[in-house]
Structures are given as C-alpha cells and as structure tokens.
C-alpha cells in the first residue's frame, strides 16, 4: 500500500497553504491587533493566597486615578451573570469569572479594573486594597479524596468531582488466569500547551441593536451559546467574529470566563472593552493548565507476552474549579487499550479538586497521559519477561485484517495497519543501527536508551464523553458544516463556521472544494462566518476538522456539482448518466460538441431562469451539515460507547543519551511512523506532527506548572516554565503510511494531535531504557535532570 492511495488531483499533493502569505508578512489579524474606537483596557487583581476569605475590598484609591473607569468585584458580577457551564453534574461547584467571598487558588481573579490603557489599569490594580483571611488549603490530590480533607467547595460535600469504576469484559477472570501480573504507578505532571499568544478578547455592546460583538482568540465548541447563557442574553444577541486569527491553542483557548467578564463590562459600561492576558495572568489564572494525573496500573499477561487485561486508576488533579476538564478523563475511554488486543479493562477515573489553577482542555484531551501510562505498561511487561519491546508490541497489536475492531469499552476502531507502520518506522530508522549506537555509547561509559511508543490518536471529535460522564447531558449531535457559493463571476467561496489556530482550515476547505469541483484551490476563497451567519460547528477540537469540516465541504461541493449536472442535463438534453464533468465543464460522453463550460453553467444558474431545470433554486450555492460518522448513540448502562470515528496511529522511535556527569538528557535521533489515512495537505500534517512531537518533548522533559508547598505557582514565567527551543528539539524524521478510513470522504483521519500522543511515552521509554542497566527508572513526567540525577544516585524521585 502506498503512502497515499486514491487518485486525487489536489488532495495529498504538496501545495502551498492559503494562510501563510499573510502571516509571513506580518498581516495576520489577531485579537490584540483589533483597536475599536474608544476602547478601554482591563487589568486584574488576583489572589496571592491559595485559599482565603475575602473580608473587604476597597477600590476608592484605584478609582481616584484619572483615566480609570471601573473596578468590578465578584459581588457585582456574580449577581448579574450565571455560572459558567460545567462538564459534569456538579452544580455546587459554581464557577464565575471573579471570586465571590472566597478565593480558591493563588492567581484567581478577584477584581477587574477598566482604564484608558492597560498601563493605567495596572496602576489602578495596584491600588485596590483587599483584606484576606487565609484559610486552610489542600494541594495533594491523594489526600484531597480522603475523609476529613479540607474542602475546596464545601457545598459540594467532597473534593471528588467525578468518580466511577467501569468494568468492561471479564477483568477478574482474566487477572485470575493470567500467568503474570504487575502493578506500578506512573505520574503525568501538570503542563499545558501554553501558546505564544495569550488569551485575548475584545467586546462591544451596541444598545441600539442590542447586540454584543465579540472578537476573541478562541477555540471552543458552543462558545457563543455558553457566553450568551452566562450573560443571560438570547443567543442571537451575541455575535462572535470567527475571522480572528488565533495565535495557537491546541485545546486551551477556551476563555469563557474571560469573555463573560469582558462582555459584562462592555455592556455595563457602554464602552468597547479589551482584555489581553499578560503572561503572568495567563500562567496563573488563565485556567489553561493541563492534566495532572496519577495512574495506578495493573497488567495481567502470560509468559508468551499475551496481554489479557488492564486495571487503570487515573486520579486527576483538576484544580479549584471544573470546566471541561473532568471530561479529559473520558476521551481515553475510546482508546483505552491502545493498539492492542486486550480483552478486558477496569477503568476508574477520579477527578479531584485542589487549591490550584483550574484545568482546561489540552491537545489530545487526556489521551496523551493515558498513552504514556499504557506504553509504560507495555515496556514494563517486556522488561518483566525479558522480551524484546518491539516483539511484544507486534504480538499484541490488532492485525490489519481484524478491522473494524471493537474494543471492550464499546468503540470500534475504523482501520489500521500497525504492523506495517511500525515496520516502516523500524526500517527507516535502521533500528539495528540505532540499537548498536546505544550499545556503543553504553560501552563507552555513557548512558543511552532507545525509546519506543506505538499509540493511537482517536479523531473526529464526537465528544461522546459528555453523555458518558454526565447522564443529564444527552448531547449526541456533533456536526460541522460548510457553505459553498459560486458567485456570478464563477469564483468559488467556501464559508466555514469557526476560528482557526494554525491548522490551515482555509487550505483544507479550498483543497476539498477544488478536488470535487475540479477547480484550482488557489482561486477558491475561504472565509469564516460570524456566529450569527454561521452554520452549526463544534470548532476544531478532537482532531476533527479534516474529517468533519473536510466532510462537510465535500458534501456541499457535491451538491453544487449535482446542480451543475442538472443544469447541463436540462440544457444539453442528455441524461445525467451520459454526462461527463471535467474541470467544471460538462459534456456528453463521446460527444464533445455537446458541452457547457463552467462559465456558461454559472451564468445559467445566476441569470437565466428560463434555462434552469424546474425545481432548481436559482443562484449556485449549497450548504452541508455533517454529523460525526458513528456519532449519535448514548452509552450503555455499563458505560460502553462509540467515542470517536477514526483512529490514526503513530510509532515513535527515539535514541536518547544522558550525560552521566550532569544527568542532562539529549535526544540524538527521533523518528515517527505516522498513519492518519489520506493526508489532505502533507505539509500541514507533517508540520502539526513535528509540533506535536516538540510539545511532547516539552511535557516529557521540561515543562511543569510547579506549585510550592503553600500553593504558589512557582513557574509563572518563561524563566521557570521551560518550553523547548530549536536547540532542544532535534531534527525529526517522519515516515508516512496511509490506511484510509472507510468512514470519510477521502479516507482521511485526524492529525491535529499527532506526535503529542506518543512523544512523551517514547521519550519516557528511552530515558528508562537508558537507566535500565542501573536498575533504575523514573515514573513521573517531566523527567528533569534533577529526577534523572536522583536516580543516578540510587535514590528515589521526590
């Protein structure tokens, strides 16, 4: 099978993107570039305490400064807006943009100041006086679930936001009959994607029309709806502009609390108001921290390497409030056995509140931590049995002929060829040479390790974790849509209905429309509708846009094409079956003289009603709304559900060396075999995969939101929150493979989370392989030089 099957003209070919030219010349249009006439600026006063009662707030000194317009407290805001939407059923864990009466983490927003400039707003913020009475706090998630623990939200009665034990298949029987069992703990440290652009929002209220216009750096499903509800406005009183370029998101640009705050201020003050988080606000109170998990893993397997069953307990420290975050324990249900034939699983997700910054969605929505735990389990089984890690994986992989493959938790994997992708990767990396290089380094007295990870990227974003984790939520519709318009000049415009944060959606839509309509994608324009003009969308989450927006664009283009065929058939007097569509022109098969050009067809559609077939609408446009393939069902009573439609696969191979004198790791070689079905634009897919790997390198080795013993976020700046630069990320090789998905138009699967879903596991595997000759291992990310050194000293981490 080739890297790219299918006979496509534009799809899968290397083509420049539509977006790049504006960005390379500095003509991107980000939220911070928006300057509305008379716009005011917000700065925040945040809590210095992890937990405290607010006894008094005095704003008079701040308001006395010239150019300062308002100081908003939680008392006022909370009385006038509704709580933000919470993903699980926990009504007593109310979350508002500003604290009311109580602060629950250091960095929580307490007062918002509005002034003529951001600098003045900061001057004023310094003059706000707040009396706090510090109260007890809880930081350790394991202690937080014990009886008698300090409660982050006393009204909720517990620090547990969500907890359930799922049993899928004969877990106890499998464990009883297995020849071996092992148990271990693996910990995923709190990190996030930390885009270089912080979250920003500008809002303007027009009392004449009763319309709130919003420009935001947003990647968030149902954002306009959530915003309108919290502000107690009808949905059609909010207009979100999706044509704002978003400077990176990868899940975290949710910003509901920011928007409710700024929307309220804009409406209340009757002035355009803008809030662009500064980096400190972003790091401590932007509520964009990612999963922070302790996995307690048990594996049951036989001497020949057959893995039968898993018990997974995942304790996730979500911080002080619930947003979408508890649901990040839900997505992994859809790929809970990874690429392996494991017949039964017990899964106990526990979502725990602590006095820390709240968690939000991060690239992969909880899948990458789970993959890290799964792959660590595979490596441990191999080590336990003295078996080759590659062989063990090959032995347990689902085979090509077993698809579609139903896993114990109720999801069916669409397609895959894991053996071939791994083999291609091993060949491309010259795996024996890689191992020889490792061994030579070891012989020379250095520490070196080879890492392997073979992981899945569930894609297509159907958000079925919502009904799974919240029985009151019966949402089963996760559509996306596209409108295609051929104007009177014959030019094609695609309308998409959400914002973009670097994924190249304009290129995606243009390529798909061009492919089906056989028009040059470079001539096709793609625009982002605002929320009042938009068709329904669920935004680019869950690696869904190639599948969902791509599918919607294809569907709309096909409708346009069908209209053209109908016009041609009517005017040429030839049955549609006897017509041939080529490059937008339509002619009778075998009779080139009977032909209508694109321009002629368009002209008929727009101007010549008398030539239109009866019943066809004049003009030439079509919309298509597509539901997630396989979407639509509610979970079974035991929590089985089809989570995502398509499953991409990645096989990572890494060579890492550790300097024994300094404990510094260095990645010597990185290769990733990748199968996301048909690639619409290979450069975009490769770019996201490289970026995902770099992000994974950060999570594995460098990045951590570390809290001190008194609940202070100690890594608030880029001096302490360490994202890898070009000097830490090595050159990366990607080997493509294509197993098309049977569920999508072109066989495409998702790739927006590619690389990140396997890189942390692969690097952890390599580090632990390097430490193995010493009998040491690390089961916590990030694997910092300090953690490695501690192992080299024969100690335990922590």
């Amino acid at each position: 099978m080739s890297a790219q099957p299918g006979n496509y003209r534009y799809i899968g070919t290397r083509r420049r993107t539509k977006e790049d030219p504006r960005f390379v010349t500095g003509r991107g249009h980000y939220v911070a570039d928006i300057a509305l006439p008379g716009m005011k600026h917000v700065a925040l006063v945040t809590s210095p305490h992890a937990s405290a009662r607010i006894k008094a707030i005095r704003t008079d000194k701040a308001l006395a400064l010239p150019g300062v317009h308002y100081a908003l407290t939680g008392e006022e805001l909370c009385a006038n807006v509704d709580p933000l939407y919470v993903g699980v059923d926990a009504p007593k864990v109310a979350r508002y943009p500003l604290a009311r009466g109580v602060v629950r983490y250091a960095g929580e927003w307490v007062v918002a100041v509005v002034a003529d400039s951001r600098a003045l707003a900061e001057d004023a913020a310094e003059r706000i006086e707040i009396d706090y009475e510090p109260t007890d706090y809880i930081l350790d998630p394991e202690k937080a679930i014990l009886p008698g623990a300090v409660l982050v939200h006393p009204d909720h009665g517990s620090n547990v936001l969500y907890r359930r034990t799922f049993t899928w298949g004969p877990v106890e029987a499998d464990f009883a009959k297995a020849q071996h069992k092992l148990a271990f703990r693996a910990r995923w440290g709190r990190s996030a994607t930390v885009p270089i652009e912080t979250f920003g929002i500008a809002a303007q209220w027009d009392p004449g029309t009763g319309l709130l216009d919003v420009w935001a750096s947003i990647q968030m499903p149902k954002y306009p709806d959530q915003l309108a509800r919290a502000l107690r406005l009808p949905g059609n009183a909010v207009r979100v502009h999706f044509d704002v370029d978003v400077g990176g998101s990868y899940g975290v640009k949710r910003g509901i609390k920011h928007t409710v705050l700024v929307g309220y201020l804009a409406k209340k003050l009757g002035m355009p108001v803008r809030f662009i988080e500064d980096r400190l606000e972003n790091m401590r109170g932007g509520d964009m921290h990612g999963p922070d998990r302790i996995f307690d893993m048990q594996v049951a397997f036989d001497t020949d390497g057959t893995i039968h069953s898993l018990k997974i307990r995942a304790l996730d420290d979500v911080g002080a409030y619930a947003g979408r975050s508890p649901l990040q324990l839900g997505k992994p249900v859809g790929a809970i056995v990874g690429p392996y034939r494991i017949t039964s699983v017990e899964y106990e997700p526990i979502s725990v509140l602590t006095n820390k910054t709240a968690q939000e969605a991060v690239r992969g929505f909880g899948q990458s931590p789970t993959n890290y735990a799964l792959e660590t389990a595979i490596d441990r089984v191999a080590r336990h049995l003295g078996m080759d890690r590659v062989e063990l994986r090959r032995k347990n992989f689902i085979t090509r002929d077993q698809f579609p493959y139903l896993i114990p938790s109720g999801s069916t994997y669409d397609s895959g060829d894991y053996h071939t992708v791994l083999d291609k990767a091993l060949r491309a990396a010259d795996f024996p040479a890689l191992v020889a290089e490792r061994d030579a380094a070891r012989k020379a007295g250095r520490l070196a390790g080879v890492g392997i990870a073979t992981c899945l990227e569930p894609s297509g974003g159907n958000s079925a974790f919502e009904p799974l984790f919240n029985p009151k939520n019966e949402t089963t519709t996760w559509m996306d849509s596209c409108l295609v318009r051929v104007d009177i000049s014959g030019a094609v415009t695609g309308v998409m209905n959400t914002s973009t944060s670097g994924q190249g959606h304009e290129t995606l839509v243009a390529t798909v429309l061009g492919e089906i309509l056989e028009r040059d994608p470079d001539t096709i324009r793609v625009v982002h509708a605002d929320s009042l003009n938009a068709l329904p969308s669920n935004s680019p989450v869950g690696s869904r846009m190639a599948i969902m927006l791509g599918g919607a664009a294809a569907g709309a283009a096909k409708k346009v094409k069908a209209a053209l065929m109908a016009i041609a058939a009517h005017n040429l007097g030839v049955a549609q079956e006897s017509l041939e569509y080529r490059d937008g022109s339509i002619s009778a098969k075998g009779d080139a003289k009977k032909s209508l050009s694109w321009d002629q067809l368009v002209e008929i559609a727009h101007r010549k009603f008398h030539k239109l077939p009866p019943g066809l609408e004049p003009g030439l446009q079509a919309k298509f709304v597509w539901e997630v393939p396989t979407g639509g069902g509610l979970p079974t009573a035991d929590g089985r559900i089809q989570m995502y439609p398509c499953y991409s696969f990645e096989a990572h191979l890494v060579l890492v060396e550790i300097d024994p004198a300094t404990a510094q790791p260095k990645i010597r070689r990185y290769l990733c075999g990748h199968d996301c079905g048909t690639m619409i634009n290979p450069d975009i897919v490769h770019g996201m995969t490289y970026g995902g790997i770099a992000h994974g390198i950060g999570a594995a080795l460098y990045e951590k939101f570390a809290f001190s013993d008194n609940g202070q976020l100690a890594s608030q700046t880029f001096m302490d929150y360490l994202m890898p630069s070009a000097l830490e990320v090595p050159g990366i090789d990607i080997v493509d493979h294509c197993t098309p998905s049977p569920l999508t138009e072109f066989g495409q699967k998702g790739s927006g989370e590619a690389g990140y879903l396997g890189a942390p596991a692969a690097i952890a595997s390599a580090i632990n392989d390097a430490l193995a000759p010493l009998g040491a291992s690390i089961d916590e990310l990030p694997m910092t030089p300090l953690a490695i050194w501690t192992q080299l000293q024969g100690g335990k981490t922590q």
Partner: protein
Amino acid sequence: MALELKGEQALKVGQQALWKLLNDPDVLAKTIPGCNTVRALGDDRYEMGLKLQVANVSGEYMGSVAITEKQEPAHYVLAVEGQGSIGFMKGSAAFDLEPKGDNETLLRYAGSAEVGGVVAGVGQRVLSGVAKYMVGRFFKALEKHIADNP
C-alpha cells in the same frame, strides 16, 4: 514558596542584655533591613513598616510582628506577617539565646517563611539567597548596635 532559614550567630553581649535588645522596638527598627517604623501594639505585638530595596526589587510592606513562647532570657518565637503590592510574607522563627562565656551569647535561630504573590511566582530562584543575605544584614546591624552602645 517556603523559605527555610537556620543558623547561629555569636554576639558580644551578655544573654540578658541581648534579650533586652531583641525585645526593644527601637533596636529592631534600626536593625531589621528596610524597617522604617515599629509601633508597639501591646502584648508583645508590634506593627512594622518595611521599605525593601533589595537589588532591583523594591516594595513597601505593612506587617505585624508577634513574640510568643517567651522564656526570658533564653527562648522566644517571633511570628511575622506582611503584605505589599508584590506579595505577602508570613513566617515564624524560634530564637534560642545561650550564654557563651563572659559577655558573649550564642543566638540560634530556626524558622521558615512563606512567600506569596508575584515575588513567589517569578523570583523563586533567588529568594532564599536574598533571605540569607537579609538575615546576615540584620546580624551585622545588631553587631554594630552592640559595638556602638557598649
């Protein structure tokens, strides 16, 4: 950020005299780095104004000091709390005064402090070095006071 401070300092002054010095608001005002006011509130509690100018970091703090567990002239515990625009500080330290020959006293201290706010979030790397330095400056000032007021 939690800071741990521990150490000992020999001072050329008798135990009883040192006890007096350490409980004298005027002496504390002169010896605590950056301290510009100390006002007794009674019950061994004081209100203190601090203007810190350590290196490039400057900030004004208002705080309170309380002395507890007094065992004159050998032991007491000092609790300090302060709040300013760049954060807060809260800590306590136990002091033990041990006579050491004639007219010399060994002062042992062991304490910890919590720091919060901007300083804690951005300055974790240097806080403990700066704190040690401040303790050193306090002792230098105390030694000077002792030398100047025999």
